[in-house]
């Protein structure tokens, strides 16, 4: 069965967000809610939700056009429309009676083969199905999305023995491939996996910090040592909303047995109660544990609550210590170390005790915490990092119970016969299950040595004659080593492979060129080095473009500056849907110098869907480079012409490498290197036109005088320099202009100032 149309019932934050993400996948979706009392517009609630989606930050929609796939309606008039729907997602209030009443209506309105799921985060499936027919039970499951649905990758799936296996398969596949979700099968237990452990951890952190009187900034900073996002405990509580805390705790109190370890932590501290009654409920309220206060000079400063006094104080900025070693942190005896140990040991012990209650295996739990809470490591991966043996020893000293899973004191994960394996409850190592068709770079890396490697990049054999170029410097910035490895890879792939994919597993494809090196050259006024850096990049990317094999770029996350430029030189791109790509060089007082102006100009000039003439294409390139425009998604990158129509988009981050490899292989047969572009550009006249526009922005106070200088250098490149409109320029002509403009800018103090500012801010 295919999912061609979806309905979401309940247009609250979650329901609307889920509908938006289904629209992001290109699937039409009905969004229904109740008819408000005395409503003139009976669709008002759902329609308002859609209009909020268009303004949401971060954007719920990948593309404004996706909103057109959402049809707003109400459950009184529009239930008959459910006849066309393949999947109905219920996302209404967490009240069993109201849900039951809705299900009774759905059972009438839907076809028997329609799949129905609930987005409940608390109610057990068994309770939800009470009183329903066997047919309904076969078609029913829980699909629990995380907020915000576009960005949080976890989808918890809960089924009952009655649930049809094909239903689970259909939903899992749709969620995996089209929605890009990581599906984790959970048992029908309270809070499922992520919130059971996540809430326990939050509560443990809250209580321990209060007990130790730890500054919350410090508490949150400590958490980052465990690969937990910098919101930590208190930032996350602010995000969730403090007013929800008592409700969540109450529901766990009722649903969990008295013997559950959670019950010991299950109470709302007096401070939190006071904050709620004062309206300090978090980001949606006046403030929370943190708040932004406007100072007299108009600047906003971050304040943090003092857990002892309940008063706000200026939040001390704590930079996470990059050299902090977990073992060292945990072995100290200061308040911070005590906090770290108490919270994490408690949480990890609890997690270990929940296998097999909440999930079949540790892999599911680790996946859930990584995808649902953005932890870098799941609890069991953390245990391996800390050393299971050491961990157990210390727990024993504290005379706490050791969960059966940890009793053998063996690592929880191991690579056996080149395959990543996990340990089951019986102590056996089994291969970590991978979804069908998945290609995991980490698996390849643990199985064989790289074909080529240096400090910044490596080349891997990913099978079927395809090589994968991986960047692995900090933030995947590009330096001499990266360029060197690209050149080596070109030689290698020529003889040993049929195609090249440029991909890495990191959160961000590449933050651009390594500016530290550039800064050093500027400080030494060593212009020859700058010149060489630019030429080397230009020549390397040029060689990549004209290599005799197809090159497919496979970016996810940020692809900025030099990272964007390398993609513009690829034959094709297979992009993750979350792609933030752009030529941002003007932000640091530069212009794209590694062929970015040339390639982007060529894309703009080749776009035949806009009015003709010399200026429109140039004006667009000038605007997008001149304002450092970054795409808000891969779909948006297509609109901006960073991607071409032929480039592919992969919704599931995990499937990106496999899709990119397939794309590369599809280009192998009859591959021809691209024809070099030639350019007809109006030269000084176009530059004058661009400068007129820039001057008006300057006069209106919208840009600074150094912006004018950068824009003027950029205009010099994009206009074609000193050429006449009847001249034909080559790619090399544009590259020379890029180099000249780049060198002109690096010699100016304004550029140095911007570079310093960026490097300081990180």
């Amino acid at each position: 069965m295919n999912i061609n149309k979806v309905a979401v019932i309940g247009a609250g934050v979650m329901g609307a967000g889920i509908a938006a993400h289904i629209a992001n996948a290109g699937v039409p979706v009905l969004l229904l809610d109740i008819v408000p009392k005395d409503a003139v517009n009976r669709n008002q609630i759902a329609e308002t939700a859609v209009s909020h989606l268009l303004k949401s930050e971060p954007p719920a929609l990948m593309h404004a056009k996706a909103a057109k796939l959402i049809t707003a309606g109400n459950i009184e008039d529009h239930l008959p429309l459910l006849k066309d729907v393949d999947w109905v997602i219920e996302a209404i209030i967490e009240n069993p009676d109201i849900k039951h009443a809705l299900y009774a209506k759905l059972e009438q309105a839907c076809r028997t083969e329609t799949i129905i799921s609930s987005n409940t985060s608390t109610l057990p499936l068994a309770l939800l199905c009470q009183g329903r027919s066997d047919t309904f039970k076969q078609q029913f499951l829980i699909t629990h999305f995380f907020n915000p649905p576009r960005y949080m990758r976890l989808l918890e799936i809960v089924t009952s023995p009655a649930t049809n296996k094909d239903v689970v398969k259909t939903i899992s596949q749709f969620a995996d491939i089209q929605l890009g979700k990581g599906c984790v099968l959970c048992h029908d237990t309270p809070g499922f996996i992520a919130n059971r452990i996540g809430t326990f951890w939050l509560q443990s952190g809250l209580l321990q910090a209060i007990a130790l009187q730890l500054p919350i900034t410090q508490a949150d900073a400590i958490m980052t040592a465990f690969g937990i996002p910098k919101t930590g405990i208190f930032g996350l509580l602010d995000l969730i909303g403090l007013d929800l805390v008592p409700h969540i705790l109450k529901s766990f109190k009722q649903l969990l047995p008295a013997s559950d370890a959670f019950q010991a932590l299950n109470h709302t501290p007096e401070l939190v109660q006071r904050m709620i009654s004062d309206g300090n409920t978090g980001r949606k309220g006046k403030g929370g544990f943190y708040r932004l206060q406007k100072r007299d000079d108009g600047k906003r400063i971050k304040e943090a609550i003092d857990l002892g006094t309940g008063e706000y104080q200026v939040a001390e900025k704590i930079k996470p210590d990059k050299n902090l070693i977990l073992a060292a942190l945990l072995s100290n005896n200061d308040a911070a170390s005590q906090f770290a140990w108490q919270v994490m040991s408690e949480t990890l012990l609890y997690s270990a005790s929940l296998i097999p209650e909440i999930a079949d295996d540790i892999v599911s739990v680790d996946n859930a915490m990584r995808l649902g809470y953005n932890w870098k490591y799941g609890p069991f991966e953390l245990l391996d990092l800390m050393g299971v043996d050491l961990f157990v020893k210390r727990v024993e000293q504290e005379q706490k119970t050791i969960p059966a899973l940890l009793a053998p004191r063996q690592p929880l994960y191991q690579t056996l016969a080149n395959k990543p394996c996990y340990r089951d409850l019986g102590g056996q190592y089994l291969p970590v299950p991978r979804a069908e068709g998945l290609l995991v770079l980490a698996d390849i890396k643990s199985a064989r040595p790289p074909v080529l490697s240096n400090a910044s990049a490596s080349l891997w054999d990913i099978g079927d004659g395809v090589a994968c170029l991986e960047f692995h410097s900090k933030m995947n910035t590009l330096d001499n080593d990266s360029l060197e490895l690209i050149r080596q890879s070109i030689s290698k792939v020529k003889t040993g492979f049929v195609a090249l994919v440029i991909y890495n597993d990191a959160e961000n494809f590449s933050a651009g060129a390594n500016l530290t090196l550039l800064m050093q050259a500027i400080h030494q006024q060593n212009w020859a080095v700058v010149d060489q850096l630019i030429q080397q990049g230009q020549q390397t990317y040029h060689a990549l473009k004209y290599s005799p094999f197809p090159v497919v770029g496979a970016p996810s996350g940020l692809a900025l500056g030099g990272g964007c430029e390398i993609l513009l030189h690829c034959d094709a791109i297979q992009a993750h849907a979350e792609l933030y790509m752009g030529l941002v060089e003007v932000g640091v007082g530069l212009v794209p110098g590694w062929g970015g102006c040339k390639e982007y100009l060529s894309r703009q000039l080749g776009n035949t869907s806009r009015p003709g003439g010399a200026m429109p294409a140039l004006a667009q390139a000038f605007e997008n480079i001149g304002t450092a425009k970054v795409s808000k998604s891969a779909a948006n990158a297509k609109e901006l012409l960073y991607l071409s129509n032929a480039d592919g988009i992969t919704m599931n981050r995990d499937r990106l490498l496999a899709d990119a490899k397939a794309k590369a292989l599809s280009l192998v047969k009859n591959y021809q290197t691209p024809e070099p572009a030639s350019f007809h550009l109006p030269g000084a006249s176009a530059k004058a036109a661009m400068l007129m526009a820039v001057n008006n922005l300057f006069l209106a106070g919208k840009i600074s005088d150094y912006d004018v200088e950068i824009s003027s250098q950029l205009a010099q490149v994009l206009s074609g320099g000193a050429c006449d409109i009847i001249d034909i320029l080559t790619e090399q002509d544009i590259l020379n202009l890029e180099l000249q403009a780049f060198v002109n800018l690096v010699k100016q103090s304004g550029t140095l100032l911007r570079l310093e500012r960026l490097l300081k801010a990180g």
Partner: protein
Amino acid sequence: MKNVVIAGFCRSPFTPANKGMLAKVRPDDLAAQVIKGLIHDTGVNPEHIEDLILGCAFPEGEQGLNVARIIVHLAELPITIAGTTVNRFCGSSMQAIHNAAGAIQMGAGEVFICAGVESMSRIPMGGFNPLPNPVLYQAYPQAYISMGETAENLALKYLIKREAQEQFALLSQQKAFAAQQKGLFTPEIIPIQSKYGVINIDGCLRPDSSLAGLADLQPAFLKNGSVTAGTSSPLTDGAAAVLVCSEAYADAHGLDKLARIKSIAVSGCAPEIMGIGPVAASQKVLERAGLTLADIDIVELNEAFAAQSLAVLHDLPIAAEKLNLDGGAIALGHPLGATGARITGKAASLLKREGKRYALATQCIGGGQGIATILEAI
């Protein structure tokens, strides 16, 4: 010399660019409907028309390909009528009238349609492909100065305060709204048929304008400037047309004569204060008519900007009760190519409506020019 008369005036509604009802109407179709309306309302025999002279400030895209001749066909006029597109930026369609007047006196025709059109929604100000001369831009950037900046220059030069500009703009809004309420625009407006229904009402007016509201607006062109969107004429879509013929022809064919064209003039000034253009043009045109400003009863002064209008009024002290009786471009809108025909036609019909003797229609023009026409009641 033959007397030349204006024997008909009409226009489309003026609506705001991009968001108004005319945004989706092609300018050639728009002008053709207005011209059809003019032929119908005046009762002129189309076979006698010599030429369709059409003003347009950015004659490219849908306004390109000598759109005047294209409009001859769209308006289903006899193919014997020639067509020429003239460009004097904002003065284009007043220039069209001047061209016809000159031709008639030269004996080069008896009846002319003088029209103007601009879709500022569909053809951007500056055009699709601005390619200024780079040498001139370097040596004399004023040649390409933006209009907003020229208004700021005049505000500085004539010490025109922001409050005064806002009072002027508010008055224009009030006059236009009152005229609209009284139905004074109805006789001149040709309802425009479009795919989206009939458009028959001016859309730029802001009857809810207030001094407090105007005072809240940000400067539009200079960071610390005084000119705002509220004290500038809005980007507008619209078309206007007048029938120009010899007085003898009008008499022989029983046409309704609105006014006689007494004298015409154009002038040049510094581009960076282009808004002062009406002063020199008006002085010339008065001298040619043998009149003084005091003799003039009705004035249509195009309100490109409030600051610009106030600067002109400083040098040409025109009594408030004579000026822009039904409001000006700040309220009604300023579709560049159409404005000249509108204010000249308006001045002619006001002479008749108000029973006055002399009228002056005058405009400033981007690049540093002025244009003026004196009309005399018949």
